[in-house]
């Protein structure tokens, strides 16, 4: 059995350190001072909106572009002077970049042959990789004769065949339709677990990041906004950007009254006071702030204390039901509740009261500039 184990269980991946990396294209800043550490075998997602610098960071790690400042370390060793073919970093491009003139098997063998692995071993490894991605029956097809999901699995097998210490995935699921995407996400997670390869996944899909990652690095305009576990990022976002980009949030302006024992009190501009989690940024009482309330932390009641408003619209979304409520002050709030069987949306115009279920789930931030 030890033989068997060694053929599928690949040594745990290498750790990666990004040290104060900055990058400029000409005079345009694409990344500023990014620092992060990824442990061996970890799956880290780079999450951020289009143009925030995700691909740039990935290409710097792979050695395809040289950073303007900072260092990249693999297992504690600086690799900045090494070209891509000397770094043991595998990459799967967004468009897969399979070699169109080679069969699936030859694509997978390419890296092994480049490393002068003996022929018999190449054959064995190709077969092993094909089994891993469940494509053994398609070994002799060319990439053109494969579906999108199959192509992606070949790209994955090709990158994993050379046993990279770090695997980089640039939006690998973006081109797939919803069902196939879910299958492939599970597949990638399974393969990553099995191979123990340190993996960096670039994505702008927050659900993908939340479901697959050990930790998420949220990027915005070339800056690292937050680096934490998926639940931490969702439950305790450290910036207004993260709070609104990951998951949905109702953003209401107000003024900070006081912070006591980890709880903040904010007077909303539209009237009423609200309890919230103490802000991470240092904000003095009396300063203007915004509060972020996730739709699922609000409940609709017909009376009692709380914000009052009128129903503008109700959307039954299967398992949840979302209401859009306009408050007396004119701001509009989304409220998401679990939907019981037979529950219909409330008719527009109904006067309702909103209750906050969890004060610690409300974030307080400085207003965006």
């Amino acid at each position: 059995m030890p033989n068997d184990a060694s053929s599928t269980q690949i040594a745990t991946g290498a750790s990666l350190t990004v040290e104060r990396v900055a990058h400029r294209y000409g005079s345009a800043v694409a990344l500023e001072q990014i620092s992060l550490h990824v442990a061996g075998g970890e799956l880290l997602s780079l999450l951020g909106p289009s143009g925030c610098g995700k691909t740039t960071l990935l290409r710097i790690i792979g050695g395809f572009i040289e950073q303007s400042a900072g260092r990249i370390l693999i297992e504690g060793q600086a690799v900045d002077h090494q070209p891509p073919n000397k770094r043991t970093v595998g990459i799967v491009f967004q468009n897969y970049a399979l070699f169109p003139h080679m069969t699936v098997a030859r694509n997978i063998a390419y890296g092994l042959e480049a490393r002068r692995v003996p022929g018999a071993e190449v054959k064995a490894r190709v077969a092993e990789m094909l089994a891993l991605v469940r494509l053994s029956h398609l070994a002799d097809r060319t990439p053109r004769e494969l579906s999108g999901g199959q192509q992606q699995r070949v790209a994955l097998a090709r990158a994993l065949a050379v046993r990279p210490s770090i695997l980089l995935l640039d939006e690998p699921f973006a081109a797939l339709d919803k069902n196939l995407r879910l299958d492939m996400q599970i597949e990638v997670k399974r393969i990553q677990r099995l191979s123990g390869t340190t993996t960096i996944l670039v994505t702008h899909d927050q659900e993908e990041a939340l479901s697959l990652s050990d930790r998420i690095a949220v990027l915005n305009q070339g800056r690292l906004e937050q680096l934490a576990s998926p639940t931490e990022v969702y439950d305790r976002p450290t910036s207004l950007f993260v709070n609104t980009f990951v998951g949905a949030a109702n953003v209401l302006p107000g003024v900070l009254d006081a912070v006591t024992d980890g709880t903040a009190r904010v007077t909303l501009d539209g009237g009423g006071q609200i309890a919230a989690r103490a802000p991470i940024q240092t904000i003095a009482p009396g300063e203007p702030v915004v509060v972020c309330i996730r739709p699922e932390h609000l409940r609709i009641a017909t009376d009692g204390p709380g914000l009052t408003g009128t129903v503008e619209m109700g959307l039954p979304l299967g398992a949840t039901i979302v209401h859009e409520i306009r408050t007396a002050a004119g701001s509009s709030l989304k409220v998401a509740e679990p939907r019981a069987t037979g529950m219909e949306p409330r008719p527009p115009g109904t006067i309702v009261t909103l209750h906050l279920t969890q004060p610690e789930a409300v974030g307080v931030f400085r207003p965006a500039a």
Partner: protein
Amino acid sequence: MATRSIAAYELKLAAPLAGFFVLFFIAPLLILFYVSMQSDTGTSLAQYARFLLDPFSLGVLGRTLWLGVEVTMLCLLLGFPLAWAYVRGPRWLQPVLILVVLLPLLTSVVVRTFACIVILGRQGIVNSALVSLGLIDTPLRLLYTEGGVIVALAQVQMPLMVLPLITALSRIDPNMDDASAALGAGAWRGFWRITVPLSLPGIIAGCMLTYAAAITAFITQSLVGGGQMLFMPMYIYQQATALQNWPFAAAISIVFLATVLAVVSVFNALGRLSRAHA
């Protein structure tokens, strides 16, 4: 009904071109063939037999075909880096290179060939530079040599090689290089295993055009080659005008035409094969 009348209409529109082809291409070809069948003893294949049994004529044909190979190889060797620099080089380089590549097309062949003569002559730029640098004592014989003809032809036919290469190279996904490097392959392995196979359709198209143009380039061949070297186009011209041997000239022409067509169809077959997977 409507579609049929449109189809009829379109055929009518093509008629002038078809007429042009029949009048100026098919008819002369048939006449050429008819003339080539004439001999002292009436209609026969005697002219063809004479050509195919004559070592001198076969030598001219062989030398011409070989000249094409040499010119094509030189064009490919120089044209590939040029096309590569155009596709992968910095943005500012592109207009410069396209001008360099296209300029020959915008000038008359005669002008370009005389320029070659000026450059390669005994008192030409190359020789005077070499002499003044002290590298040689007496001027080299560059003109009226096979080497001179090859270089001049390569310069003249270069756009025919570079343009298809540029098209083929720019169709290759730039991520291919990165993917190859990320898998641990060095630049040379990536070049031979990825870039060359993927640009094969362009290489074949470029070679075909250059080859066909080089072996039929009457003006450059005869001006730079002088009287010393005889290639097929000049051979045909001599037989027809100087010796007034029209039947033999026609027969050589047909043989030459058939040879060129054979070469072109080999290239075409290769091209189809390479496009099947590239």
